[in-house]
């Protein structure tokens, strides 16, 4: 019999590997009876891992940092995706650069989410803006798109596939993408130390399955897209502003292509994680004082064993 295994995910492109591994039957292939459990955000998902109701989750590592800093015993066991967060602005808003956001309305993610942290700690900071200089509202991505269409906000900080959808349906253009400027391993695979200790084989099998899914996303996006489109777009076509109807699968395929999926955490990734930890300390999310110990959170034995 296959091993029962509970995977938490959030319905975003960043988590495509989990959805694809499930839809393409890869978990089964590696001998797992996987159960996919949806969460509305990484901040919710992490509680499932802390509470022991999930075996792994694919989510922003910042969540693991916050909980680890409060005493939860968590492990980051693999990479998933490099952060893709773009700033799209309405064409009539007169925003040419990030610095022009001053005094404008910006739709973003929930406060405390990874997106929110890099938005404030990297994008705004680099442009010399304080969070208080503009009006930031944390809303769901679909609502952000709706608001861009209706003109209630001037700009939105989005990830895939919403960035792509926004550019199709709203009078907006992308002026910034953090992955180009400041690539960082946004999504990682997180588990609890207990699971790692007791169910290492199963865990590694899941990582293998997800690695295969990542390979498909990177190499055969056209094959992967139809399997996961249903997670993001219900209608068969997206009614775009200028290009007529576009098949939904095509939108998702493009979204997959813009993302940079990777099962491995490189040294560069790890140093980014440390930079971000410092930012989180500055924002008061992590306790100030001593530098946050990122290394003790990492368990890279799987990628070492697989010689990635």
């Amino acid at each position: 019999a296959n091993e029962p295994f509970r995977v938490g995910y959030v319905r975003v492109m960043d988590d495509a590997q989990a959805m694809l591994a499930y839809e393409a039957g890869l978990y089964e292939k590696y001998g797992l009876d996987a159960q996919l459990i949806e969460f509305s955000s990484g901040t919710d998902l992490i509680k499932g891992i802390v509470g022991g109701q999930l075996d792994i989750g694919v989510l922003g590592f910042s969540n693991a940092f916050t909980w680890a800093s409060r005493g939860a015993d968590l492990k980051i066991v693999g990479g998933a995706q490099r952060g893709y967060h773009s700033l799209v602005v309405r064409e009539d808003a007169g925003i040419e650069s990030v610095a022009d956001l001053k005094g404008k309305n910006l739709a973003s993610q929930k406060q405390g989410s990874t997106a929110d942290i890099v938005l404030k700690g990297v994008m705004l900071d680099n442009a010399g803006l304080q969070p208080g200089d503009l009006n930031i509202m944390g809303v769901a991505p679909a609502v952000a798109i709706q608001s861009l269409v209706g003109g209630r906000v001037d700009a939105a900080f989005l990830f895939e596939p919403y960035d792509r959808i926004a550019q199709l349906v709203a009078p907006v253009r992308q002026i910034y993408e953090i992955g180009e400027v400041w690539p960082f391993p946004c999504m990682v695979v997180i588990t609890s130390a207990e699971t790692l200790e007791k169910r290492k084989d199963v865990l590694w099998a899941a990582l293998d399955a997800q690695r295969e899914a990542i390979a498909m996303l990177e190499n055969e996006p056209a094959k992967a897209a139809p399997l996961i489109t249903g997670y993001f777009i219900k209608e068969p076509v997206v009614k775009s502003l200028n290009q007529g109807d576009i098949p939904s699968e095509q939108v998702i395929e493009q979204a997959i292509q813009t993302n940079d999926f990777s099962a491995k955490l490189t040294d560069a990734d790890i140093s980014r994680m440390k930079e971000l930890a410092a930012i989180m300390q500055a924002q008061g999310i992590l306790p100030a004082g001593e530098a946050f110990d990122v290394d003790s959170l990492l368990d890279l034995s799987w990628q070492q064993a697989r010689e990635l």
Partner: protein
Amino acid sequence: MADSNASGVASKRAYVVAIAVILLMWQVAAWFLPDFLMPDVPVALQRLWQELQSPAFYEGLGNSMSRLGAGYGAALVSGIILGLVGGTLNAVRSTLKAGIIILQSIPSIAWVPLFLILMGFGNLPIIVVVAIGAFFPTALSVMNATESVEKVHISAARVMGASKLQMLRRVYFPAVTPELITGAQLAFGNAWRALISAEMIVGFSAGLGKSLAYSGEIADMTGVMTNILVIAVLAAVIDQVILERIKHRLLRYQYL
């Protein structure tokens, strides 16, 4: 009998008229607002009809109803017990009441972040939040009612030689029933609100609130309106049909 039937029919008529007026107002709003902000009534009804055919809908409904049942049921039982005990024990009553009033002023939804972490992601945190919402009004109403059982009713039973148990079963319990039911209906309102908002916040496992919140997140206005419709109809049916019927049965003597 004939009388109460007649008024029953009259009020059914009032409900039908009221529903028609509400739907009309909605449709008028839909005419003035763009489609993606407010769907037409027929569109929403059609979606509703589709939903009623999908097993996913019944899964969510089942989840919500079992959480409601567990939370509300637990609250009723414990509220009645605590209320009866508190109402008869003079020593602890005022402290107990003060405690209830203080804890009651915390919206039960505020416990969600705490319980999510303490109890994890099962049904438990939602059930507990629902139970907390319903517990306080039940306990308070039973306690107040027990305290104010008419003295002459107690004296009369004592004079007739009632034992403690007979007193409880035949005097206290029926005497508090009217207020208990009022409290239970109030409690139902709280439980229902707590259920929907907890499900909206918790963002986990299918349910009515989750489905509503999700429709909102994907900006699916038809979905939002259908979900609101389902929530409204369910609450109205539970409160106005089921609870009212139980009330009429238990308090039959008042309606003759």
